[in-house]
């Protein structure tokens, strides 16, 4: 009889311990997924102990202890993502009716559109008309060559140039929202003073 009691005790102890173990495995978890706009997103996870950056889709950051930095990004399997996040993901509203983002590129240190981007202008006008949009954002940027103040000015001139082009093509000025960020928000991160054509841009967002 006593033997049985001992077995029972060990059995309960084992279950308690394994239960604790299972609990410890279920940590806070953040997973980056492919961006529907195709533009690489970035997430920064900060705990009391430090901070980690997540910029690759299909990678996950775990938090083991809030007093420690988050665990560096690790790849995570699709199966695990659907296992944990299936219900949330299937309830995500459909993004089809959201905004359209069109990026115009510029020649270096000018407000001159590149040859390909001149063609995109027509696409922007078509999009505005087909959506009957009255909310259009024109956001200017530069690459990382030159000083901040200078680039703020250049990005402002680029954005206003695009705005004026749209106005001269019949778009109502009160539907256009212009902003600019100089070198602060490169699309492609580079070292300072690196010329990068993809960063010399105006983003037009048509809602």
């Amino acid at each position, binding site marked *: 009889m006593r033997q049985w009691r001992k077995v029972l005790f060990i059995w309960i102890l084992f279950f308690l311990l394994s239960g604790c173990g299972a609990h410890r495995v279920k*940590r806070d978890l953040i997973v980056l997924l492919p*961006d529907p706009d195709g533009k690489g997103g970035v997430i920064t996870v900060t705990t009391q102990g430090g901070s980690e950056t997540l910029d690759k889709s299909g990678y996950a950051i775990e938090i083991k202890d809030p007093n420690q930095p988050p665990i560096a990004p690790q790849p995570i399997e699709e199966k695990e993502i659907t296992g944990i996040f299936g219900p*949330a*993901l299937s309830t*995500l509203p459909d*993004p089809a009716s959201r*905004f359209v983002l069109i990026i115009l590129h510029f020649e270096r240190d000018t407000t001159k559109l590149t040859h390909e981007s001149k063609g995109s202008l027509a696409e922007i006008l078509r999009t505005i008309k087909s959506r009957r949009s009255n909310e259009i954002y024109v956001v200017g940027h530069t690459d990382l060559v030159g000083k901040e103040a200078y680039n703020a000015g250049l990005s402002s001139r680029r954005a206003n140039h695009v705005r004026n082009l749209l106005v001269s093509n019949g778009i109502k000025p009160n539907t256009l929202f212009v902003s600019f960020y100089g070198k602060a928000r490169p699309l492609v991160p580079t070292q300072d003073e690196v010329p990068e054509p993809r960063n010399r841009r105006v983003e037009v967002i048509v*809602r």
Partner: protein
Amino acid sequence: MNGNGLMRLFLFLLMILFSFSITGEATFADTSPTIATVQKVSGMATVVRQGRTISAQIGLELYQNDTLRTGPGGSIGVVFNDDTLLSLGPESMLVIDEFVFAPRQGKFSIAIRMLKGTVAYVSGLISKLAPESAHIETPTASIGIRGTKFVARVEGD
């Protein structure tokens, strides 16, 4: 000494009471505009607003300071005014502390507290126009979001 301690405690409680009534007033003034709309619901999902629990239905408008909750097997999907998409899986809870989308004033901000469960998030215009102004707080961490889609699980307490 003892009386002094009691007095301090009393003052402290009074201060807490005051701060509550002040924030209560401030939020009351701010709650009127709609910031998001419920677009998908399955199973048990509710919105807690100023202490009242409302059953979530498609089309329900959300305000600042609303809390979203789901039961076992429940889920809810909402669209914010800036086209940010957000959904919760089962047994989840989230508070929308702040949502400001005012392009004419150049004001943008998202502050969400994810208390427990699972969340999926696709950023909208705010992350495009003011990338540093979207944040989700969890009990263990602060998540800064720059234009992207992600999911998170929060174990809660």
